[in-house]
């Protein structure tokens, strides 16, 4: 069942999108009608105007989901399941001709030659201006200037179409012709092309880690795939093309010789180490620019023009054959399209970092599968399941061995015949060490439970210690003044600032995280209990004194119930803060927990997993809050009515 659902994601999504559009439309209609009907029911600003309105909730949720479906490319995948594969083939062509595009004003604004000339001329100018006359003799200086000048002349020679070697002109023309042939191939259409059986066996888009199937699945895709191979060999030819010019060759030979003499002079130069180094550095800088222009990568624009036109035509004919694919690409696959790099085609933009809703559900289902052996759970632990917990393990954890030491009696020794008969105390020790089986109880297990467990234990301890201290601080001058500075000093420190210290002291196991969360919960509980206790109406305290209550009774029967609303609100806040801190603490260290999953997912850029953990945390946080609100409503109905 899950397999089938997982395979048919695109189809399911297509259905869901239609359902969402319908629910959006219907709820919007109802909402607008209701707005008109009730426009005059209440004046503007009346709180009653915010009551009800489920249709707007439906409308908002549908809109949000539709936005998610759209920007995650789920809509595109649902209705054009093969489009991405075809665009991937186009991306292959783009990858193939990218070196040529980069040399033409296609990939950038200028010819690569123009860019080279602008950059190198500017550097030559600044080198000339900064010529260190004190380092070189007059003769050397003039020689350096001549090298700089000749480098300029080389640039000029390569840029002049008249001094171009006819052979290199011809090579460019040939390449342009090849591209024209290729354009004809493209425009000939894709009749008779068939995808290979191998291609058809590829997993569907989004099912495996390599997102978009690489091999072409449609005849048109096969055509593009073939063209991309041919274009690749043409691009390779282009990369080997060199600008040739007799004038430039002469200047290059001459300059090379001059640089050589300058270098020799440098090797024999006398003087301090820094002096020699500075001379060498300057000559090297001049030589570096010379080397950039001496390899024939500068062409006159006129020479490249025919190739430029042919490549443009080629791209245009590819666009022609693409047809509606370009429209799908820009409308249904918003973002930066699909890019082919090395071994895979990847989604760019929101399609990449915003996983498709159905993919998120599939990932969650995989994670929630309790059968770890068949690939469920995460890193060998289930998401949320149960296991048998040995009671002896619990005893081992809670009963320290030293308690047994304090009991009367003594531990046994081995007897003369080399045997050991355990005494009663020995058996007790075995019990405390958890070596006597006491049966097992079912216990929750898994990443979510581990996270919950940490929060719950820390909250429990925080309430147990924080509430009594807070109440005493609310009624006693000593407790208030003694503990106030301590708590107020550590409380404002963000919990995450404590994390590195606490985790270093306690290690990465549960106790460190629990202690960190305890600190968070404790401070919040103290402050809320204190506020609640000190907010007790004086007349209530006086009334209970007159009714004969003792101080302890007043604390228990008047101040505590009076502080209950604040305490419960404190618990609600503390759970929220603990939950936030916990996830961050789990990211720092640990091997289980929701935060741990997200941290691992981050290191491998598994966006789906990241979103699944974000959703899990959001939903759990929401559940906590709903639960607390329910508890508050049930336990303190008098809140705000006293």
């Amino acid at each position, binding site marked *: 069942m899950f397999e089938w659902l997982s395979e048919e994601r695109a189809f399911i999504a297509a259905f869901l999108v239609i359902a969402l559009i319908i629910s959006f439309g219907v709820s919007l209609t109802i909402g607008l009608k209701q707005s008109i009907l009730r426009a005059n029911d209440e004046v503007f600003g009346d709180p009653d105007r915010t009551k009800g309105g489920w249709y707007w909730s439906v409308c908002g949720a549908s809109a949000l989901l539709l936005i998610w479906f759209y920007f995650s490319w789920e809509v595109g995948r649902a209705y054009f399941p093969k489009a991405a594969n075809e665009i991937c083939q186009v991306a292959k062509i783009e990858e193939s001709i990218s070196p040529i595009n980069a040399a033409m004003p296609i990939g950038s604004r200028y010819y690569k030659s123009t860019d080279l000339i602008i950059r190198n001329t500017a550097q030559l100018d600044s080198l000339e201006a900064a010529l260190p006359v004190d380092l070189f003799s007059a003769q050397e200086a003039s020689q350096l200037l001549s090298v700089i000048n000749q480098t300029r002349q080389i640039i000029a020679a390569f840029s002049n179409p008249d001094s171009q070697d006819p052979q290199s002109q011809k090579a460019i023309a040939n390449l342009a012709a090849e591209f024209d042939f290729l354009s004809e191939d493209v425009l000939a259409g894709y009749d008779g092309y068939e995808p290979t059986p191998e291609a058809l066996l590829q997993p569907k888009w989004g099912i495996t880690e390599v997102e978009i199937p690489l091999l072409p699945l449609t005849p048109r895709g096969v055509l593009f795939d073939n063209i991309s191979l041919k274009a690749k060999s043409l691009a390779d030819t282009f990369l080997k093309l060199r600008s040739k010019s007799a004038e430039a060759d002469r200047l290059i030979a001459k300059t090379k010789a001059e640089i050589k003499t300058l270098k020799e002079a440098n090797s024999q130069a006398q003087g301090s180490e820094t002096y020699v180094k500075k001379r060498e550095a300057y000559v090297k800088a001049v030589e570096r620019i010379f080397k950039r222009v001496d390899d024939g990568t500068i062409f006159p624009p006129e020479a490249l023009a025919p190739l430029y036109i042919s490549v443009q035509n080629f791209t245009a004919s590819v666009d022609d054959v693409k047809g509606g694919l370009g429209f799908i690409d820009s409308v249904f696959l918003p973002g930066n399209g699909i890019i082919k790099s090395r071994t895979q085609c990847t989604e760019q933009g929101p399609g990449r970092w915003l996983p498709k809703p159905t993919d998120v559900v599939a990932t969650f289902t995989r994670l929630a599968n309790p059968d770890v052996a068949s690939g469920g759970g995460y890193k060998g632990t289930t998401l949320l399941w149960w296991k048998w917990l040995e009671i002896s393990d619990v005893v081992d954890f809670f009963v320290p061995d030293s308690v047994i030491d304090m009991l009367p009696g003594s531990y046994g020794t081995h007897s003369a015949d080399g045997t050991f008969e355990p005494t009663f105390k020995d058996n007790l020790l075995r019990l405390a060490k958890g070596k006597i089986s006491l049966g097992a109880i079912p216990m929750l297990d898994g990443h979510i439970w581990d996270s919950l467990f940490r929060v719950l234990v820390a909250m429990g301890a925080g309430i147990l210690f924080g509430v009594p201290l807070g109440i005493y601080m609310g009624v006693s001058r000593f407790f208030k003044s003694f503990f106030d500075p301590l708590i107020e000093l550590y409380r404002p420190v963000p919990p995450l600032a404590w994390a590195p210290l606490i985790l270093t002291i306690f290690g990465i196991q549960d106790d460190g995280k629990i202690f960190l969360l305890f600190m968070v919960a404790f401070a919040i509980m103290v402050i809320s209990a204190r506020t609640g206790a000190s907010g007790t109406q004086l007349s209530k305290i*006086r009334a*209970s004194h007159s*009714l*004969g209550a003792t101080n302890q009774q007043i604390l228990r029967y008047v101040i505590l*119930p*009076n502080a209950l609303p604040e305490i419960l609100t404190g618990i609600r806040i503390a759970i929220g803060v603990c939950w936030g801190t916990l996830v961050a603490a789990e990211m720092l260290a640990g091997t289980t927990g929701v935060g741990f999953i997200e941290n691992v997912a981050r290191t491998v850029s598994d966006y789906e997993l990241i979103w699944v953990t974000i959703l899990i945390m959001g939903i759990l946080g929401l559940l906590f809050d709903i639960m607390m609100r329910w508890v508050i409503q049930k336990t303190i*109905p*008098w809140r705000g009515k006293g």
Partner: protein
Amino acid sequence: MTDLTCTNLSMTFTNPQTGAAVEALKDINFTLKQGELLSVLGPSGCGKTTLLNMIAGFVNPTAGTISLGDTAIEGPGVERGMVFQQGALFEWLPVAKNVDFGLRMKKQDEKEAVALVEKWLDIVGLQGFGDTPTYQLSGGMQQRVALARCLVNDPDVILMDEPLGALDALTREKMQSLVLELWKETGKTIMIITHSVEEALLLGERLFVMAPRPGRIHKEYRLPFAEQGLKQSLRDIKQDSKFSEIREEILTMIWNMEEEIMGGV
């Protein structure tokens, strides 16, 4: 006999910042015999609430003594019941639990407690309201609960700090009758602080008009209206010409005091 006696009672508040001392009360002397009904009236700042708080034992006088019968008062106690303006009910407890609070604190037998609570709820006119949360009651009903809570403890003296101040006129009149009835039936000593001259006249067998700076008893009256109120309707008493006469006299007195305070500022 458990008479309430105040001897040379003085109270001085010192501002901790400026060190300035304010004489809230100075040399108060009076004896309230058992079963007497006293109302205390005065402009704001005359120390009437301070006087009540000292008798209740919430604050200690800076000089002088208060004694109930033969015992000197050194703190709050069950023999002096309190009723506050806002009831000061425990809103987390239902009516019955509020009323038996004092009994629970001294761990009285549960059966007896239940019977007592029922009896007093009956007397204050709240039979059947035992399980109602107090926050669902109206202001008048809340004051009835407060009265029952105080009376269930069987105090010798009942101290009321503007108990009817927050009630509407009609409820107030009913509650005034209730207080008079309770006074007659229980024979308790009652001391009522109030802002309302009419209420002070109606509920005071004795009436102190206090004056401020320093707080002192300016004039004492002995009035027949409380006794009359037991027999005839309170509204008829208010029509009485003698009632109007005293009311005007006291109003003028307090008016002049207020003028003096304003003029002094």
